[in-house]
């Protein structure tokens, strides 16, 4: 299957192949193909991340929020959002931590699997994400046990940044808000107690 073919198939909702095989521009095209006409037009111009970094971010975001019967992170252009936040919203210190986190991810991939993150297979990538998440959860637990006001550690972790940005980018996108969360701009009424699953 060549690249064009992969993209085309993605566009009609086939299972996701290893995203690391696509360039960033192609990744964006995946999102566009699925969601043409919805949301803000995505641009392939990166503001902060290198193309490589953007592809790593896209792969990780898709691991966190994959496409299922509803769209995934890449479908709704989460990478473009993360790039903008890293470029314009993050402090220098936060940007530095984010970029160092991406580099550390590659280093860990090389150490464990002998290849960089993007070249690793999806099972290997998930193992790496699992490790990062376990470290994050342990840090969150430590934060909870410490008296407040002592400076949170969990927030300093790359995977905290990554998870927060992915969730924010995903759940504030038009597609996720309307299709996944059932958001309506004008609900018209407030119903105080209704069954969640009718």
């Amino acid at each position, binding site marked *: 299957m060549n690249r064009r073919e992969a993209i085309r198939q993605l566009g009609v909702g086939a299972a996701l192949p290893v995203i690391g095989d696509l360039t960033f521009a192609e990744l964006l095209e995946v999102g566009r193909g699925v969601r043409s006409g919805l*949301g*803000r037009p995505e641009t392939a111009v990166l503001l902060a991340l290198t193309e490589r970094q953007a592809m790593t971010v896209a792969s990780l975001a898709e*691991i*966190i*929020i*994959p496409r*299922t019967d*509803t769209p*995934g992170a890449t479908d709704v252009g989460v990478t473009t*959002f993360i790039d*903008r*936040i890293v470029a*314009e*919203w993050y402090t220098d210190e936060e940007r530095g931590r984010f970029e160092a986190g991406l580099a550390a991810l590659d280093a860990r991939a090389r150490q464990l699997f002998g290849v960089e993150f993007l070249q690793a297979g999806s099972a290997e990538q*998930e193992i790496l*994400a699992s490790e990062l*998440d376990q470290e994050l*959860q342990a840090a*969150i637990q430590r934060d909870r046990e410490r008296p407040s006001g002592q400076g949170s550690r*969990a927030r300093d972790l790359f995977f*905290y940044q990554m*998870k*927060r940005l992915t*969730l*924010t*980018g995903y*759940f*504030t*996108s*038009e597609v996720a*808000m309307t299709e*996944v*969360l059932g*958001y309506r*701009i*004008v*609900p*018209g*009424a*407030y*119903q*105080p*107690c*209704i*069954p*969640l*699953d009718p």
Partner: protein
Amino acid sequence: MSRSLTISAAGRARRQTHDAIVVGSGMTGGWAAKELTEKGLDTLVLEAGPEVVPERDFSEHVPPWQMPYRGLGDRAALEREQAIQSTCYACDELGRSFFVNDLENPYVQEKPFLWIRGRQVGGKSIMWARHSYRLSDLDFEANAREGVGIDWPIRYADLEPWYDYVEAFAGISGMAEGLAHLPDSRFFPPMPLNCVELHTRERLMQAFGGGRVLTIGRQAIITRDHNGRRACHYCGPCERGCITRSYFSSVNATLPAARETGRLTLRPGSVVHSVIHDPATGRATGVRVIDRETQEAIEFFGRIVILGASALESTRILLNSATAEAPDGLANSSGALGHYLMDHHMGNGAVGRFDGWENEFYSGRRPTGFYLARFRNVDERHPDYLRGFAYQGSAYRAGWNRGVAEPGFGAEYKERISRPGPWELSFYGFGEMLPRYENQVSLDPEAVDAWGIPVLRIDCEWGDNERAMMPDMRSSAAEMLVAAGARDVRVTQEDNPPGLTIHEMGTARMGRDPATSVLNGNNQCWDVPNLFVVDGACMTSSANQNPSLTYMALTARACDYAVERLRRNEL
């Protein structure tokens, strides 16, 4: 002493005289404009900020995906231009356009004080959270009963008809509870409590013998159509405006009514510098204005002057109106001007989780939560402190935001956090602050704002009584959560400095004696009979209720009095 101001020839040529001048077009200025024009006065409203055009400036229906930062805000711009304003939750990505630029509007914090301001037509009535509660004689009698500060010159009976009056126009939704110390308003139909709130209400009724009443927040939002305004459609972000005019603001309600009379002249971009005072007659003759755009100084003249520029801005104008005869500020023969600054202390409470109701949810974004009425020092005397507090809060199911702290990723994780999380219920306390002479504002001898007007130095801190109340606000909230059957109960504490509650008041208090107060019981300056201060500066004590409804009632009452006196030529 006021800096001398040169009025340009053009400014003099445009000399205008009106029946009444109102300074400010926010919550209180809007009411003054409506009342005075409807009573036949040709009224000039001078507003420091720009015009607000709902079709252009309201943004409540802009969804997150159309915001460049998806609601996180332009952080760099906020930090640069609105470092103080953005400590308020409503000063966010879009809402920030209704908050002042801190660089143009500096002030000096002798002690930490967050001064949150809106400078545009409508003032803070655009961003307010619309909670509206009457005061009662428990509040109006408190100072006299306890020997704190000075006695209020009015009682609930004086204000009751005016609460009725402003409520009939503004529209307050809520539920009648028959509490003597939190009198019911003339309610529009209440917004409903959700199932966990209803459960908690009932549990508290049982556990505390009716002494802890959890009711729906009383909101200046109409729940059925009224006066050409439409019933609320539950879109959520009211602080960014309301194109259907469902909630009460000057822009949505009072200014259109004033305009309708044909007697309103609204001049945006008019930064009032000082009141012009004629020592020969002892009367105010008008005000000096700096044009916001041209920086030109202009004078306007009127038979009465009403200050409604917000508590601290009105006091700032009076301080800046000092003359040889009144060297410490106009209307300040008592020396009370600038003193007895108050706010409410907020942020002490508790939160807990509720098992059950797993298949229960709600739809629509209800623009209020519940209110738990004051229960301390109502019938019994608390050993540690005077006065009391109330809580706002709500029961809700956590959204996707909780996902960062939840383990996992992938399909199962996505499915899990796309669904509502467990039920939580939180109590968030608002407590009364006692008036103290030391809590004060004064003019800085040097620093000026972007229009060359001296800035305020604010010197204010919580006192012993407030600090003694805070632990009880936490433990009482926790106690109620336990009584309602919550688990994982955690107390919460924010340690906010004064100001952030945005209920700043006092500094030109009402009283019965010209020797100890700035205003009489009709918001009229003792020293200058045709000068009125109708905003929160007039407050003699703070009570613990959100104050704006009381400001509205006081403003309507003061305007009624002023017009009557004017007719009888007694001003």
